[in-house]
């Protein structure tokens, strides 16, 4: 991979604006890296490579709580290696991968496989284990043994746990290791086989609608159960006003609830579907402009804790088909920063520092990852951002094995210039 190289022995990031979300400070200074670790000026000899960061922002590497790297079993769409490359290109140095592989990550042996294999790649990969065996929602998977092998959270991925008793059992059992359950919130009986958000646009297009109720009702159930049991729960890819209201109301009395939003729900509204673009077919669906605005407001109000890409690679033939037959999901790692920076900071009221929190310390806190990344002797996990750069997202910007992105040809604002992680450096300029 020509854009990702082993890091030089000594590296100086010069004249950048450092935003340190952990210590809540912004300042201008140089960052020194030796043998892949953060160090000080004194430890650097004269031979260091210097990267001029004038006008750029240096901050923590991003952390994604929801990506699909499809290994083992679906290496034709993505692998741990190509997924890592896509993450590096998007500024992500730490990624939680979902268990919807083939076979699914429902046992400690497979968790161990991911952890061991990920050692070879430039980012930190954390597997999320299945809640139930084979993601079938019927009986508990070996959550404790998976936890001991390094699973950081548990989820049945895009297969919601429909059975309320099963969800209760899972939330209760998760307390054994004080670990978080992530349940894709969708009442399958209500969403039925809805293709896009139910509303004016679904009526216009003649496509079967998936009502926002299908999401908010499930969130209500999950948050009631989690509150009753005093268990940790994380709500993934929140997409609607109704859901935000549920989360806001439960969060008032429960500190164990967290929630995320995906870049595409902040960037697109369902009018973009008027072209029947199958790359916009996602779960939960892209909703109305009112929902999009409410999501942005919820991010500003800290009802939403973090941004997660929901990177879901699909084979081209899964998308180059009629809308009803197309698979759900889009890739999202490479386009994430440019999209959310544009929607939330450039066009919205969020400060860049706040956006960085949503991509760095907030997701790390949910998973219990270390966050003091600029401290000396830490293995460097940094990004160098050009927050004002306008650029058009193109096929050449995609490092994933799949290309199912509706962001292609979109003008994004804010670009990841460099990503430094585990002794590797990604450069967008080759």
């Amino acid at each position: 991979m020509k854009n990702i190289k082993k890091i030089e022995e000594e590296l100086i990031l010069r004249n950048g604006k450092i935003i340190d979300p952990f210590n809540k400070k912004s300042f201008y200074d140089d960052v020194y890296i030796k043998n892949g670790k953060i160090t000080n000026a004194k430890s650097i000899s004269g031979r260091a490579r210097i990267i001029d960061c004038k006008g750029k922002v240096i901050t923590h590497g991003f952390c994604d709580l929801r990506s699909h790297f499809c290994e083992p079993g679906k290496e034709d769409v993505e692998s741990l290696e190509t997924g890592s490359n896509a993450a590096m290109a998007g500024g992500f140095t730490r990624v939680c991968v979902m268990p919807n592989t083939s076979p699914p990550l429902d046992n400690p042996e497979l968790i161990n496989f991911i952890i061991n294999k990920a050692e070879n790649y430039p980012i930190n990969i954390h597997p999320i284990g299945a809640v139930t065996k084979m993601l079938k929602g019927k009986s508990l998977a070996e959550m404790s043994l998976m936890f001991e092998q390094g699973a950081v959270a548990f989820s049945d991925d895009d297969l919601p746990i429909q059975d309320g008793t099963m969800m209760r059992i899972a939330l209760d059992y998760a307390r054994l290791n004080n670990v978080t359950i992530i349940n894709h919130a969708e009442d399958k009986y209500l969403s039925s086989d809805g293709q896009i958000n139910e509303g004016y646009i679904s009526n216009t297009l003649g496509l079967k609608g998936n009502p926002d109720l299908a999401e908010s009702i499930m969130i209500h159930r999950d948050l009631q159960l989690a509150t009753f049991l005093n268990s940790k729960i994380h709500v993934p890819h929140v997409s609607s006003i109704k859901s935000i209201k549920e989360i806001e109301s439960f969060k008032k009395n429960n500190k164990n609830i967290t929630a995320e939003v995906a870049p595409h729900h902040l960037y697109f509204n369902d009018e973009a579907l008027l072209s029947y673009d199958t790359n916009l077919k996602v779960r939960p669906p892209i909703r109305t402009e009112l929902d999009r605005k409410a999501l942005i407001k919820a991010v500003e109000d800290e009802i939403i804790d973090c941004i997660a890409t929901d990177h879901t690679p699909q084979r081209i033939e899964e998308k180059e088909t009629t809308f009803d037959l197309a698979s759900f999901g889009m890739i999202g790692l490479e386009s994430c920063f440019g999209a959310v920076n544009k929607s939330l900071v450039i066009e919205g009221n969020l400060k860049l520092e706040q956006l960085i929190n949503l991509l760095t310390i907030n997701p790390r806190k949910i998973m219990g990852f270390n966050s003091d990344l600029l401290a000396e002797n830490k293995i460097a996990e940094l990004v160098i951002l050009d927050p004002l750069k306008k650029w058009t997202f193109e096929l050449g910007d995609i490092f994933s094995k799949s290309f199912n992105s509706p962001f292609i040809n979109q003008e994004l604002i804010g670009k990841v210039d460099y990503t430094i992680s585990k002794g590797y450096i990604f450069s967008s300029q080759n």
Partner: protein
Amino acid sequence: MVLTVYTLFQWMLKLKNKHLLGLKDFPREDIHTILDMAFKFREVLDRPIKKVPSLQGVTVVNLFFENSTRTRISFELAQKRLSCDTVNFSASSSSLKKGESFKDTSQNIEAMKIDAVVMRHPTPGAPMHLSKFIDAVIINAGDGTHEHPTQAILDMMSLKEVFGTLNKLKIGIIGDIAHSRVALSNIYGLKAMGAEVTLCGPPNLIPKNIEDMGVKINYNIDEVMDWADALNVLRIQRERMGLGLIPSNREYRSKFGITKKRILNHKKEIIIMHPGPINRGVEIDSVVADSDQAIILDQVLNGVASRMAILYLFCGESPGKDTK
């Protein structure tokens, strides 16, 4: 000889309850009385001739609506040692199969003049239900996921045999608490006797708010082993696995199993109990179950003595009495 004296002073031993339906709100003094009597019968069981005439002329029916091996044999032996007449009934060979109601079956049996019923039933509360329409003494031999009072009595007897007292004793009950009649009866009995109880098992198998019964919960088996004087290790029932409540045998063993390794890691020698039947290698390792600190077979012997004491105290008040 000893027993003759006890028969004479039987009036002093009068229990407050007519039936043994469960240990909830069961008087502490009565548990004392039963335990004292059980130790006396234990002496009988150590004699060459293990039979006494204490319940001669008393008729007991063993009504087993659910399969049982050891409880049933234990009760039958206790009855035979006490010289009472017994009739056995099991659901599989009964007229229940022909559609007769529980009430009719029970009343028909009572009409044949019996003094006591020992009942095992899969439904919680069935013995109390039975007590509403028959006059005979009812001994609960396990009602579903509710209570198993005679098991708790024999467990307490076994603890008392080792420690001399139950007061302030620290007992860990390990496993599937939610579906265990043994756990519930033990909690009631041990709390009444002044013991401290900590429950340990998968969170989804420990009922919510069970702390209200005055017990503690700790999900860490190693901490419980550090704390406890004795552990009552419950059987993990395979049918629970079928419901998806426990991921696998190996996961259960790794989190809650009383393994050889765990025993070796704890300096304090704790007493290990198990109500049986054992799943060796799941909730308890074979070497632990067969070790000196396990009193599992003592529990079985004490079970016969406890049930003799219970039958004697509940049914022996007026031997051969006429029921209506």
